[in-house]
């Protein structure tokens, strides 16, 4: 059998979806016939892999995982969290902590110096961000988009 063509693929096969004029890349494999769920790993991903694995790991938590009736995180929360991680293009940002919430959401937490970000990915996929500097109470931003979070990560990295 001889090869018809050999290509070394440097770009992953991803479907681009326009949403509100911005390009959103769908890393959940939905663009072909496969059913088994996978996240494709673009060649440029390095630090992203571990937090994404942590996000997926939260989906394996059983109901009442926290002994207070905590719900297993929802897949929509995980998709949003992964979308946010995948959208961060800054080189070598601080690694986010990944914390499951009893509400069925997932929280991503970043800290650099005196600046902190807590990004709540809710069970319905919506996002709320708490932006903190120093000992201040912080500023809550509801209905944030992943692109807003990316800008806030840039703010954090400027600390």
């Amino acid at each position: 059998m001889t090869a018809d063509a050999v290509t070394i693929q440097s770009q992953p096969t991803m479907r681009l979806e326009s949403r509100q004029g911005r390009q959103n890349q769908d890393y959940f494999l939905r663009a072909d016939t496969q059913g088994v769920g996978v996240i494709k790993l673009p060649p440029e991903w390095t630090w992203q892999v571990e937090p994404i694995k942590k996000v997926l790991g939260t989906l394996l938590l059983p109901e009442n995982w926290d002994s207070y009736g905590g719900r297993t995180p929802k897949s929509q929360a995980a998709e949003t969290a992964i979308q946010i991680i995948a959208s961060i293009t800054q080189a070598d940002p601080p690694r986010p902590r990944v914390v499951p919430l009893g509400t069925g959401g997932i929280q991503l937490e970043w800290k650099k110096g005196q600046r902190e970000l807590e990004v709540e990915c809710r069970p319905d996929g919506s996002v709320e961000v708490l932006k903190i500097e120093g000992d201040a109470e912080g500023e809550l931003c509801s209905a944030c988009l992943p692109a807003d979070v990316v800008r806030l990560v840039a703010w954090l990295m400027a600390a």
Partner: protein
Amino acid sequence: MSEELPPDVDDPSIPDEEFLYRRIPLQPADNIQPTEVEGECRPSSGNFRSDGPLSVDRSSLTTPGQTRDRGRPGIFHVAQVQAKVARQCGCRLVKDPMLDNPAHILMFGNHDSGAGALNGKQAKVVARAARIVLWSGPPL
């Protein structure tokens, strides 16, 4: 938690100096983080997020070990925070004793949903002040 919630009215008989205990799951490891003091850890604010008011135990009526064991068969650390910290960020503390847990208290917050949960800011204030007092995992 009792089936019907008690009224969302702060109970002044719970002193400000009272410590409140909460179980913190060992996994995932990101649930806790080190503080500036070597060997000391605190929980993430995510541990104080819930659908309704937050369940905690009064230190005057129980011990950290008893709080931990109420979570069996899971494995948990126990964190503590003073009642005044919760009140200072606008939370209300209400006694809600249960048959198997007379120390049970509900901490009501100001979440937009109106269901009595803590909002993001309140959870952060409480988490910042909380400290792990009973460590159940391998040594750091």
